[in-house]
């Protein structure tokens, strides 16, 4: 989607290795979110951010950490990847104006842990 990009788009990594996914936005939105999408589960919230250096855990945060040092960047790190973290990861943003309510999603990162 315009205004939000995720990198990489695809990644294959080995069990036990650290992995960092990047989300970059150009909308200057305050709120950013990381979700994972798995068949039968829909999308589940991993972590979210209220602003720079202000983050909190979602419902499936175990094994993940995040950082937000700039408004435009929100990083998701898998400290030691496991096969259960094979998934599609989506970043989303939302703003404070009612016209911006509801997320804008990135195109996703497909992560495979072997």
């Amino acid at each position: 989607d315009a205004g939000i990009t995720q990198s990489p788009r695809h990644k294959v990594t080995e069990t036990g290795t650290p992995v960092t996914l990047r989300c970059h936005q150009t909308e200057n939105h305050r709120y950013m979110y990381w979700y994972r999408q798995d068949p039968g589960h829909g999308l589940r919230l991993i972590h979210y951010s209220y602003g720079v250096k202000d983050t909190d855990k979602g419902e499936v945060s175990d094994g993940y950490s995040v950082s937000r040092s700039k408004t435009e960047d929100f990083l998701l790190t898998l400290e030691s990847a496991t096969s259960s973290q094979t998934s599609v990861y989506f970043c989303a943003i939302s703003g404070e104006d009612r016209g911006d309510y509801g997320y804008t999603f990135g195109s996703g990162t497909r992560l495979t842990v072997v």
Partner: protein
Amino acid sequence: AQSVTQLDSQVPVFEEAPVELRCNYSSSVSVYLFWYVQYPNQGLQLLLKYLSGSTLVKGINGFEAEFNKSQTSFHLRKPSVHISDTAEYFCAVSESGTGFQKLVFGTGTRLLVSP
């Protein structure tokens, strides 16, 4: 806490027929409601949203949804579907009030449109 139930995991329909995708939610507080569409290998795109006001909400691509507070439902409808509407559709809910929304998603409904 909020939750969302999409009762139908898959809905097959013929082209030009009407369709309804069902969504029920649970919440002890006022909510915002959303429908998203996901085409294969893409991110989710906002179809429409209910924040307040009229309970009938019109969105993109000819879709509309009706908020029914008494039945805690937000069903998505389209009077005549096209092949290009084949996709997965997600209903989502958040607590109302601010721009910060921890959206809770349903498990999705796959709409399959055939000629």
